[in-house]
């Protein structure tokens, strides 16, 4: 296949579609035209346009060959030109793929005040992180390496990543590739369907990777892939006329401008080699026409307003991540499969050999997993044959990824579903490769700060094994700093430290629970997540503060609960962002009067109390605003409590344990009274809470709430034991058994010590039980059981001690492992026997029996 040289001139003229000869020109979608277009792309004397798909080994191989053949003056690959400064590191022989170029941009949007955080304005900037992952077989990387080998100049061509145009459509972190267009293309989907391929990835393998094409045929196929995607998404059929989204138009304008600038330089130097431009096929579908047609572009007007803050660097990447990208239609799946294909480049039958390796490893993996019917050696042979037969059936030149997967499924699955085969396959096809940065590659500012901080805190950075870190945060200032550092990293999503045990603030028990225990491990994931966190700031402290401000902004935008704001305060304190605390407390104070929900207020009170108890290691002074919040919460609780009467059902119908509103109300009461009774750090007006509680009691008919209110009164000495006993007996005697058990449940929820401290209370309970018949007992049992289920084992023993003398006999033996079902069955059976005896005229036997009730 010789080069036509300049004989035909540059066939891609400004007039648009390709003309392939003197005949009436074929339509652009006809094979002849597509082939002619490919030839034209490749044989330009000034510019060679090479369409690719990211991470395609076939494209990589052919672009490499082409560069060696054409010996270009320059190689330009798709990507923001600011990345030019990492090219040297990328092609450094000390670098091992996969690596990713990571960039972040912060665009402060016009208004939004001056600060990033503070006030209710929140965070008024758009932050964006992008990845540009590369593996050994990425055509972009291969083109750069080959370009370097033939002495070409190297560069990137695309819209710069800091350009505000990017921000219109995108936010957050994402990959800088165009794969989603292929997945979304209706044309490709239809074609896949026609060709018997399950999706566009299989179609790609079928038409390109497994097709064993020469360079021109490959470029024709890849270029058609791009054209189809373009046509499919716009409905236009003329590649020159195909319009794309705004961002695409702007990006392609930038690519063209970049190529033109390099072409001008080339002309000045009088170089003869062409410029090879390597871009995604989607863009190559229009670039030559735009290059030929556009007048030299006027410089884009500089974006007005603030300059974006931006930065980029190289990070280690992993196959895991790369494969996960395919889940978001942002990459080709199964990197380890394509790596095999690439590594076997010189093998006479790379795909067959790669299939062999994968099937062998999957079989070994399954065998190691044990289980019956693991693949035997003949099974492996069969799997090979199966893959080969599938290849033939599907009419491919070489075995494709899906053929290998199908063969493994057929031949290795020995039960329903083949789940183990699927996961072994997925693991092997994804691979666990992790990249290595070349010596001297700059770390991103955030990663560098991470290194510095970790070193100064004497955190051993050991890649081999996880480090266990115990922090005495009450005693040691250094340990507190480490704790803040680790919490902060977690808050911005950096994968480094994992909290194994946190101190229990409430525990009055020993000091041993006051330690924080972490395991820390540096991994590729740390590097990647550090890069991702770069968009929040260039030091760890800055990133943590900005992220916290961002979270506050998001919370405030959606009617935050008091508890959620307090947990943000807690996070701020833990991460050591002390100056963020006051603004959060201030916005909480502004909201408390409107908090509609007693549950939220009660939980916030408890949270505030915990925070105060733990304030020393968290840095007390920063929490100075907390008492004012606590007092306001108390006031709000007092306002909400009487109004909660309506939320409890009027009847006594709701059974215990049903999570009924009155159960929640009792819990809220307990919490508020508990904090009010114990939090000496708050100066509270006691009478307000009691007044509220009394009003609630007067307004509600719920026995559970009455039980709770009486319990609180007794506990706080507002009624004495005798008064409590009278009230309790009254409820227990009610005809509706649920009134009694509801009351008891409420009482025990707030003051279970009443059971053994109030003389006669247990007696009253036991009297009631003695006076009812077995049928009624069976009916009341579930309610009673759940009331007593609240007790701890030692409390149960205590109750039994008091109960024994009351029922005659000594302390009653307790049958703990008797389930409720069994107990009920026993009682029911006894009752049935008794009925039969009476029916049979043998009622007298009953009276004679030593124990009339049924006891299992």
């Amino acid at each position, binding site marked *: 296949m010789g080069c036509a040289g300049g004989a035909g001139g540059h066939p891609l003229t400004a007039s648009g579609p390709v003309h392939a000869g003197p005949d009436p020109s074929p339509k652009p979608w006809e094979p002849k035209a597509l082939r002619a277009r490919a030839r034209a792309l490749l044989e330009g004397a000034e510019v060679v346009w090479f369409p690719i798909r990211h991470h395609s080994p076939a494209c990589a191989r052919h672009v490499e060959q082409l560069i060696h053949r054409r010996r270009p003056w320059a190689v330009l690959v798709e990507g923001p030109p600011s990345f030019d400064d990492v090219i040297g590191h990328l092609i450094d022989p000390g670098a091992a793929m996969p690596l990713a170029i990571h960039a972040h941009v912060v665009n402060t949007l016009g208004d939004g005040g001056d600060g990033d955080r503070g006030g209710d304005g929140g965070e008024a900037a758009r932050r964006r992180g992008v990845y540009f992952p590369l593996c050994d077989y990425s055509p972009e990387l291969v083109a750069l390496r080959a370009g370097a080998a033939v002495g070409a100049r190297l560069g990137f061509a695309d819209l710069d990543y800091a350009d505000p145009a990017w921000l219109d459509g995108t936010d957050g972190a994402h990959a800088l590739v165009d794969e989603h267009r292929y997945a979304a293309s209706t044309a490709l989907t239809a074609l896949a369907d026609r060709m018997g391929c*399950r999706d566009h990835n299989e179609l790609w393998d079928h038409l390109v990777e497994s097709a064993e094409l020469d360079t021109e045929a490959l470029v024709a196929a890849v270029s058609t892939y791009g054209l189809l995607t373009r046509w499919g998404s716009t409905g236009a059929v003329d590649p020159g006329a195909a319009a794309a989204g705004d961002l695409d138009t702007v990006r392609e304008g930038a690519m063209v401008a970049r190529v033109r600038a390099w072409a001008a330089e080339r002309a000045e130097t009088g170089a003869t080699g062409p410029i090879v431009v390597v871009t995604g096929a989607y863009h190559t579908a229009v670039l030559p026409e735009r290059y030929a047609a556009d007048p030299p572009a006027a410089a884009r007007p500089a974006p007005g307003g603030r300059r974006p803050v931006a930065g980029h660097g190289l990070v280690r990447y992993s196959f895991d991540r790369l494969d996960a990208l395919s889940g978001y239609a942002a990459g080709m799946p199964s990197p380890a499969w394509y790596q095999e294909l690439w590594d076997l480049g010189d093998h006479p039958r790379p795909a067959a050999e790669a299939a062999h390796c994968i099937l062998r490893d999957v079989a070994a993996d399954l065998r190691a997993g044990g289980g019956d019917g693991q693949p035997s050696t003949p099974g492996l042979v*069969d799997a090979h044959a199966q893959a080969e037969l599938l290849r033939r059936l*599907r009419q491919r030149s070489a075995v494709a990824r899906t053929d290998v997967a199908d063969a493994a*499924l057929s031949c290795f699955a*020995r*039960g*329903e579903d083949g789940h183990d085969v699927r996961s072994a396959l997925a693991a092997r096809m994804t691979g666990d490769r992790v990249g290595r940065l070349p010596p001297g590659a700059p770390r991103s500012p955030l990663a560098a700060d991470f290194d510095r901080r970790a070193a100064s805190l004497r955190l051993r950075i050991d890649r081999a094994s996880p480090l266990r870190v115990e922090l005495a945060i009450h005693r040691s200032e250094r340990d507190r700093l480490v704790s803040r550092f680790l919490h902060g990293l977690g808050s911005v999503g950096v994968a480094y430290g994992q909290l194994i045990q946190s101190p229990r603030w409430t525990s009055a028990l020993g000091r041993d629970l006051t330690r924080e225990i972490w395991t820390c491990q540096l991994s590729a994931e740390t590097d990647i997540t550090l890069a991702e966190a770069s968009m929040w700031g260039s030091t760890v402290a800055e990133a943590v503060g900005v992220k916290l401000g961002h979270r506050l902004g998001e919370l405030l935008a959606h009617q935050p609960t008091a508890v959620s704001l307090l947990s943000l305060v807690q996070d701020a304190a833990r991460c050591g962002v002390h100056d963020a605390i006051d603004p959060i407390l201030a916005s909480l104070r502004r909201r408390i009067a409107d908090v509609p929900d007693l549950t939220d207020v009660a939980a916030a009170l408890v949270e505030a109390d915990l925070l105060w108890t733990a304030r020393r290691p968290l840095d007390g002074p920063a929490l100075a605003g907390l008492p004012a919040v606590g007092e306001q919460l108390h006031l709000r609780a007092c306002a909400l409590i009487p109004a909660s009467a309506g939320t409890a059902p009027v009847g006594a119908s709701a059974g215990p344990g049903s999570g009924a509103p009155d159960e929640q109300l009792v819990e809220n009461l307990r919490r508020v009274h508990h904090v009010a009774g114990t939090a000496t750090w708050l100066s509270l007006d006691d009478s307000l809470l009691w007044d509220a509680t009394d009003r609630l009691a007067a307004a509600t008919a719920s026995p559970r709430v009455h039980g709770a209110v009486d319990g609180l009164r007794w506990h706080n000495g507002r009624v004495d034991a005798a008064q409590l006993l009278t009230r309790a007996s009254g409820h227990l005697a009610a005809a509706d058994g649920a009134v009694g058990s509801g009351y008891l449940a409420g009482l025990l929820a707030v003051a279970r010590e009443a059971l053994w401290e109030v003389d006669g209370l247990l007696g009253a309970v036991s009297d009631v039980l003695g006076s009812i018949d077995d049928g009624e007992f069976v009916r009341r049992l579930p309610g009673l059981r759940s009331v007593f289920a609240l007790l701890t084992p030692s409390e149960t023993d205590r109750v039994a001690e008091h109960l024994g003398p009351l029922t005659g006999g000594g302390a009653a033996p307790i049958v703990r492992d008797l389930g409720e079902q069994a107990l009920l069955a026993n009682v029911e059976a006894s009752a049935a026997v008794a009925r039969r005896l009476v029916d049979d005229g043998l009622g007298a036997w009953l009276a004679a029996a030593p124990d009339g009730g049924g006891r299992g």
Partner: protein
Amino acid sequence: MTTTDPPAPSSPSTSGQPAADEVRLPAERRFADELARLLAADREPRPEGWLLSPRRVRSFLVGDPALGVTRKFYGDDPLVDRCLVTLMSNRGLLLVGEPGTAKSMLSELLAAAISGTSTATVQGTAGTTEDQMLYGWNYALLIAEGPSERALVPGPVLTAMRAGSIVRVEEITRMQAEVQDALIALLSDKHVSIPQLGDDGYVGARRGFNVVATANLRDRGVHEMSSALKRRFNFETVRPIRDPALERQLIESQAAALLAEAGLDVGPPADVVDLLVTAFNELRSGTSAEGVAIDRPSAVLSTAEAVAVTYAACLDAAYLGDGRLTGRQVGRQLIGTILKDNPDDAGRLRSYLDVVVKRRSGPWRDLWAVREELGDTR
């Protein structure tokens, strides 16, 4: 029950006697035209003993518009490829899956297209014997003439071995373990000896012979198969169709085919099919389109049931109603499908009607109306 039919691999369209009153013709007769067209167009090499090349068999299953061949199996084309390739190999094919996922249909279609006959079938039950699979004797002749070819009554497996065709073993896991294990020798040695016939008693399988077995996952018998037998099969799991659009397409085309066979040329209206697909999906998944949780009936609600309900509802409309299919007929059939063995299912269906269907309009109104016919369920 065991049936055999002399295979006629070379001329599928004329095999057997035409029997217009048979309830359901075997696939090779129902689709005789399609098979003939595929055969005529087939230029590709075929494995020995195969009637069609693998690609044409594939077309028979997944359709080929250019040849007027309809799609018969929906939702998993790679599965079809895997089945074909397995049948070319020396392993048997075992299709496992939930009830009603078209395992039997696949096995019938594969046998019809590969061997030209799908009737060499062993129906697995606890009572299936080795004799029924392989061969038995005509005792009158045996006594009169002694053991002879004439006195031999070949079973489906022997027939398939001699003809070099596919034998189908339905519900393999329901057969006794010893009977299952008789297949091991067959699948590995590919021959049987009939000792009574002496030297003539050696029957080697001709090329093209293989086994397609099916097993239902609700029978829970797959685990108990001996590992020696498991190793001789490739397992393929047939899954329920997950894409509602595809299921809809399938229901429409299969119901139309059944109706045409029944001599009716009415198709179900689109909104009624929509209703049906939606209702089946909601009852299967336990959530309504609006996200309301529904108590799932325990009855099997596979695509097979959806097709059957559509077909029966169309017959109901044609013969008992005014010919117009509405949600009402669908509802009646749904009741019949759901109220099978679990009495609680009636309550579940009723609450689905009350909670989900009642709020909807259009044909859903008619569906709700069948509530009366549910009778009183506590």
